[in-house]
């Protein structure tokens, strides 16, 4: 057993850190550090810089632009990306649809979609959830009916993240209404400009627009846009969701937020002492750092175990990462609110924060503290809710 990083791994880390800091514009990284969102343009710009370096989709097969890295290298890549506040390569492209196409798609689909997805030439969004199919995703009702060579889609998707920016949507649709729940579902790639699709924004409680409802009314999709085999979509979706879960711990993002909390607490005065000198606050901060360290070591164990696991087989331990990772993301936003004190209250939308004549009142970053706290409630809901993760662990690990 050797629990330290090798010299090569440390050098690899330095190299990436350097690239992220020097090549991704501070204009973009600063936004994330201050709790603002990257715009569509920022996201595209950052991903293209990464992609030019082969750093957008290292998790893909090498022949499609991936890297032949060890699990530890992948881990370092993700952590450094997050610590540097680089917008993560769009997950819908890079950890969701890309790997599915690479693994199960036809050669024509790979040639048509993969390079464009890696470079964010196409922006993808995820059309899985429906109003009545959330945790129970397999009960989805959107249908795709064969008509000649085409598929015709009818139904509704919801919670479609950043659908307003997207060019394409990958959809789970029922293709065999007679089959058992999981067995009659297919995985389709749909051009969002196809007639019959309408999108309606849903405003989230932080005031942002990040999710949408998508309606399909007789949407005609060419047969070649079906991924893999008909009625095997559930298998592909499970493969995809397994990839989603490990990413969702976002330890690096929480670490970056905790660093920022420390920085801001050093600048914030409480009477004649700095907040960072308040023993009560220091204990809270230290306590969160301990919890984060424990999660980080757990993540490293999961990473190390990946070498032994059969390729593509999900590790139920990733549910531990998801539960704890989401809880700590939430806890860090709550601690950030503590730093701001009463200055969490003023509401300024992101445009005003960035371009207003005067900054919002209070400490730096005060205006994004409460919105982030509200918004981060989502991380224990999506990607398989924390209750569903517990159900997975109860079965897969404890054998109930």
């Amino acid at each position, binding site marked *: 057993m050797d629990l330290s990083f090798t010299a090569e791994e440390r050098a690899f880390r330095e190299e990436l850190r350097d690239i992220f800091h020097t090549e991704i514009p501070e204009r973009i990284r600063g936004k994330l550090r201050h709790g603002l969102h990257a715009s569509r343009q920022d996201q595209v710009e950052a991903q293209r810089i990464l992609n030019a370096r082969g750093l957008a989709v290292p998790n893909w097969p090498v022949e499609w632009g991936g890297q032949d890295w060890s699990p530890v290298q992948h881990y370092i890549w993700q952590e450094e990306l997050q610590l540097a506040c680089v917008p993560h390569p769009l997950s819908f492209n890079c950890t969701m649809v890309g790997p599915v196409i690479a693994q199960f798609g036809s050669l024509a689909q790979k040639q048509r979609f993969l390079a464009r997805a890696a470079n964010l030439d196409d922006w993808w969004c995820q059309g899985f959830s429906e109003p009545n199919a959330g945790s129970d995703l397999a009960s989805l009702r959107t249908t795709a009916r064969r008509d000649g060579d085409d598929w015709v889609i009818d139904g509704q998707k919801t919670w479609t993240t950043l659908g307003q920016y997207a060019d394409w949507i990958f959809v789970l649709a029922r293709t065999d209404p007679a089959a058992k729940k999981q067995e009659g579902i297919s995985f389709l790639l749909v051009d969002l400009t196809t007639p019959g699709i309408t999108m309606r924004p849903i405003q989230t409680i932080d005031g942002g627009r990040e999710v949408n409802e998508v309606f399909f009314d007789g949407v005609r999709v060419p047969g070649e846009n079906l991924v893999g085999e008909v009625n095997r979509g559930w298998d592909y979706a499970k493969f995809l969701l397994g990839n989603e879960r490990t990413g969702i711990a976002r330890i690096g993002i929480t670490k970056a937020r905790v660093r920022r909390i420390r920085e801001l607490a050093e600048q914030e005065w409480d009477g004649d002492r700095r907040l960072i000198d308040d023993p009560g606050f220091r204990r809270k901060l230290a306590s969160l750092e301990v919890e984060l360290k424990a999660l980080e070591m757990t993540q490293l164990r999961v990473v190390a175990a990946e070498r032994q696991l059969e390729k593509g087989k999900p590790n139920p331990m990733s549910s531990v990462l998801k539960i704890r990772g989401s809880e700590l993301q939430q806890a860090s936003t709550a601690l950030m609110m503590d730093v701001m004190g009463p200055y969490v*209250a003023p509401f300024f939308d992101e445009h005003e924060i960035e371009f207003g004549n005067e900054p919002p009142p209070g400490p730096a970053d005060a205006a994004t503290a*409460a919105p982030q706290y509200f918004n981060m409630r989502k991380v224990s809901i999506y990607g398989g809710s924390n209750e569903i993760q517990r159900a997975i662990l109860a079965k897969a690990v404890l054998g109930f």
Partner: protein
Amino acid sequence: MDFDLSDDQRLLKDSVDRLMAETYGFEQRRAHMAQPDGWSRGSWAQFAELGLLGVTLPEAQGGFGGGLVEAMLVADAFGRSLVVEPYFAHAVLCAGLLRHAAEASVQDEMLPVLAAGESLFAFAHHERAARHCLSHVETTARLGEAGFVLEGRKSLVLHGDCADRLIVSARLSGGMRETNGIALFLVDAAATERRGYATQDGLRAAEITLDGVIAEVVLGLDAWPGLSRAVDEASAFLCAEAVGAMDALLALTVEYMKTRRQFGRAIGEFQVLQHRAVDMQVQLELARSMALYATMMAADPDEETRSRAISAARVQIGRSLRHVSEEAIQLHGGIGMTMEYRAGHYLKRLAMIEKSFGDTEAHLDRLAAMGTAW
């Protein structure tokens, strides 16, 4: 001890509940917020008509003649409906300040005006470096030829953007956080410079600059005792408001769990989720008890006894509201994350209550410093 309401109190509660049912549904609230001030002058007039603006004021001064129990009933109802009018700033904070810090002659003049709701009052007290310290006042007052001249910046002044009159705290003497040397003045809001904005929970506030403003009226030159009492009473109000909000939110959550179906059954049938709702109920009950306790103790003239009780209540309420509101969103799933649904609005209001007039940690610090003994 008697936990039952009197007939008059019941009548008050019924009439407030009825008003809320008729005028403060979710869509109606949205319409109130879309008005130019960010709240409804129409609702304001209805509050005045029902006597709610002067609910704790004596009848002789145009009030309803109630006490803190009556205020608690209003708070509970307003918490359920997420009222956005400047009730707390005007009818709770400023009414309390006038009652406890102003001379009788000033009270006789101002309280009827306040109870009628004709002129809108706001409390300009907080300053940038105060954090949770109530006695932090850097704004200065100095006696000039035309009266007291005020110099300083006030921050997070709830409803300061549309107030007609401001009750301003300023320092006559003493260090930045000393309780001695704080005075209260009445100022014409139009004489100040204001930057208004919305708050996360849909209320309004302002940053206010006092640049040589002359006070209209001196409320009190040794104002700390009255100020701290008024703010403790206001804290009791916030506790009751939080309980109203939590109660409504829990009911909403339970109802949702009984109707939302996944995996072929109502999610409320999953025992693991039932237990989660029960834990919310436990937190709510503790909060309810402590809100009552706060109401009971808020009138205690002994500052230490009173503030110990208020801080204890605020600690429990702070913990309960965090638990109840976060769990409510979780148990709703995605729908709880949207503006279109009530639950998230409770989360936001409750989170802001936690940060008003001392957060949970600050109240715990206050208790720890006192060496709690009941």
